[in-house]
């Protein structure tokens, strides 16, 4: 008998680890209802819908993971080859077998009572609409996708770039379809949209292929150039960096002002949503990211801003209705938000860490319950809220709540203000005191920093920024209700800040666009409105993933990256032997104690 060639020795341990995990993930996704809910969103019409993407990507990823190896420097690893491909195939097939079992299960048992998605509908989606599809097909599909995943490890890097960039582009273009559709009118590009998209939604097949190959090609040509440009920008110093920053800022500003003119109602209102959350997130970023105060009740200030605007501008305000213009009421919004910041902050600020987080959580709810209460009903209308809030009268221009473009410009202005304030504060004396407090509060105090005042200031600045968002929201919607200010909003804003990167202004931008723009806010639909209630699940998964893999956020501030990956950094430098200078003892520990 001949033994198998060594290249065909399979790592069964990995296969039996990742295969079942893949199957479990597939079952979870199916039973949560993703394939059914996301099926209407077509990616490549009529071949592929987002529902199937939610299934297909799992065997692919797990095939990739199972077949990728740890490359150690200086240790000979065998060349990737047939055994890796087989590993991928088997992993994917085990995953697919999970779905096969699920289909058989749905056919034969009925446990729809606890699992509402254990339904014929799911069966139909899994059977690709065909009635008598053999459920074993999924083993094949899983295996094929696992093969593709594993192949990504085997093929040369440039090809991998082409494939990944190409497919991500197709996915992105399909996701952005409603926005592109909306913008095409302004740019007179309806013909292009008609050319690449089906009427019922989804890319047409050939344009998708052409698009993917085009982007793949560009990705190969531009390889490394983007990274280089970024690195170059980072390395610039002093006046040169300032200059580049101004140019970049100028481009963004011009785009921000000019683009909305070409955008339709849909994109403008989507961006206004993003903007309102961005404004909130920028405010919270000052509190959490700069001063290190974990405020879980941030929505309170949003509510105060909205209610102040409602009381001062609406003719229908139950107790006190001066009917001011929005611009004038903004003065009171700022004053009252700052006051609320002080009132909530004063007792809270002396606490630290977890205690502070819990108390702020409580205050956030207290504010909402106060607005909801019967006790204050004569003043704030209780559950009925305050209606009839007029549009935004700035004196020289009137923006009605339904004028999405006007609202967007307004949001843009306040976001720019918030960015400017955060940016200036970061470099200021106050900003330095926040950094010191975040690092070590006791020592900061010993340096002579008045920690209570500094932290209160962070609270107040954050409160004022959030109140702006509230004021805009109130005028935009035309009414305020206590239940628009649920704790969930605080959580979502915090997730935006964390996913984006705490303490990083560009990070907050990316976080807001990805989470609010694509997935949608707590009540506001995003580009992927099919996600509906699933978006909270996605938020949660994203948060867990980020904490495990990239705790510094999508676009981290340089400071956080270094801190969180310091161990890796030190190990690397040790391996490369570049850190020979530091021979002294490590700092921690108490060896010298007598």
């Amino acid at each position, binding site marked *: 008998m001949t033994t198998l060639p060594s290249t065909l020795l399979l790592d069964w341990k990995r296969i039996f680890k990742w295969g079942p995990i893949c199957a479990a993930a597939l079952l979870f996704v199916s039973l949560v209802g993703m394939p059914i809910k996301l099926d209407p969103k077509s990616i490549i019409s009529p071949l592929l819908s987002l529902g199937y993407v939610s299934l297909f990507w799992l065997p692919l990823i797990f095939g990739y993971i199972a077949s990728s190896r740890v490359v150690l420097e200086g240790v000979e690893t065998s060349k990737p080859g047939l055994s890796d491909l087989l590993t991928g195939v088997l992993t994917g097939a085990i995953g697919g077998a999970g779905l096969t079992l699920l289909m058989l299960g749905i056919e034969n048992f009925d446990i729809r009572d606890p699992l509402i998605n254990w339904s014929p509908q799911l069966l139909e989606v899994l059977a690709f609409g065909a009635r008598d599809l053999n459920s074993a097909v999924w083993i094949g599909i899983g295996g094929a996708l696992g093969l593709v995943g594993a192949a990504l490890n085997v093929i040369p890097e440039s090809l991998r770039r082409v494939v990944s960039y190409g497919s991500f582009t197709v996915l992105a273009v399909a996701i952005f379809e409603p926005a592109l559709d909306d913008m095409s009118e302004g740019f007179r590009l309806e013909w292009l949209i008609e050319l690449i998209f089906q009427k019922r939604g989804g890319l047409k097949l050939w344009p998708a292929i052409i698009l993917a190959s085009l982007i793949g090609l560009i990705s190969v040509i531009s390889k490394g150039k983007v990274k280089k440009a970024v690195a170059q920008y980072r390395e610039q110093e002093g006046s040169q960096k300032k200059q580049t920053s101004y140019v970049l800022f100028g481009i963004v500003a011009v785009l921000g002002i000019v683009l909305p003119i070409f955008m339709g109602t849909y994109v403008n209102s989507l961006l206004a949503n993003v903007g309102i959350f961005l404004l909130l997130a920028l405010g919270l970023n000052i509190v959490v990211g700069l001063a290190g105060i974990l405020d879980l009740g941030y929505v309170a200030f949003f509510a105060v801003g909205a209610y102040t605007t409602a009381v001062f501008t609406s003719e229908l305000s139950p107790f006190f209705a001066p009917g001011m213009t929005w611009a004038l009421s903004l003065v009171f919004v700022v004053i009252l938000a700052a006051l609320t910041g002080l009132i909530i902050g004063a007792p809270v600020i002396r606490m630290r860490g977890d205690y502070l987080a819990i108390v702020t959580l409580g205050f956030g709810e207290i504010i909402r319950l106060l607005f909801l209460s019967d006790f204050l009903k004569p003043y704030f209308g209780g559950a009925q809220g305050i209606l009839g809030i007029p549009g935004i009268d700035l004196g020289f221009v009137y923006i009605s709540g339904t004028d999405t473009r006007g609202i967007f410009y307004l949001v843009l202005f306040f976001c720019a203000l918030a960015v400017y304030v955060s940016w200036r504060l970061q470099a200021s004396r106050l900003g330095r005191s926040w950094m010191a407090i975040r690092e070590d509060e006791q020592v900061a105090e010993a340096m*002579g920093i008045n920690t209570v005042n500094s932290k209160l200031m962070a609270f107040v600045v954050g409160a004022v920024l959030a109140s702006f968002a509230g004021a805009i929201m109130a005028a935009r919607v035309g009414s305020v209700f206590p239940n628009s200010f649920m704790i969930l909003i605080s959580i979502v804003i915090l997730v935006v800040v964390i996913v984006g990167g705490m303490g990083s202004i560009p990070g907050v931008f990316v976080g807001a666009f990805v989470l609010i723009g694509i997935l949608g806010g707590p009540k506001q639909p995003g580009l992927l409105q099919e996600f509906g209630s699933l978006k909270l699940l996605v938020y949660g998964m994203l948060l867990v993933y980020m904490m495990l893999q990239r705790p510094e956020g999508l676009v981290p501030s340089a400071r956080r990256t270094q801190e969180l990956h310091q161990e890796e950094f030190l190990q690397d430098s040790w391996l490369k032997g570049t850190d020979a200078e530091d021979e002294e003892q490590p700092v921690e520990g108490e060896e010298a104690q007598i």
Partner: protein
Amino acid sequence: MSTETSNSESTDPSALLEFRQVNTHYGAVHILKDVDLAIYPGELVCLLGGNASGKTTTLKTLLGMVTPTSGDVVLDGEVVNNQPTSYRVANGVTMVPENRRLFKRLTVKENLMLGAYLRNDRDGINEDIEYVYDLFPRVKERLSQKAGTLSGGEQQMVAIGRALMSRPKVLLMDEPSMGLAPALVQQNFELIEKINNEGMAIFMVEQNANMALSIADRGWVLLTGRVILDDTAEALRANEDLQKAYLGGGSGE
């Protein structure tokens, strides 16, 4: 018996920093009991004592993080009992905290600048930062590095540099040898001596009594919140009781 009150007994106009009959409590627990201390310009004094003898409380009271229940804290002739930490730092007291406690994620330069947080005189700050560079040339090489990535000895230099940036009259040091490797402890005490030789008054709290007394001018010994010995370093080293209690059974010189 003299008719003078205990207050005026210890009054000394030339003292930089003084405790007059200070008592402190944490809740119902009586920590410092009628403590009298005085630190004079240019002196290096150390406060010795075992665990829970009130050493750190003494420092916190000097710095204003703990308020005495009775007695006075006097800074440069002024009673500062009710002044906050920031006032005392601005008027010449700074602490180098136990275990250095740098702002690890901030750069060395930022750490130094935070030491000068309360100052507005740009020229003076620049002057002092040059002084710190002169004192610790190695710190200058590391300016843009994160403080947490420095070695133990370098961190100690930055911690002292940070304290010096507030241009103090008295430098308080909480357990400077804590958590340092033996070789570094020696180096550290040499540093302290060097700064003292430049004219800085230093008040050092230390468990490593042998080392501390070898460079100090005077010392106090604290036992459960009471000063039980107050003498020159020389005399303290010769004291047999202290030898037994702290200095390892008189095995020394």
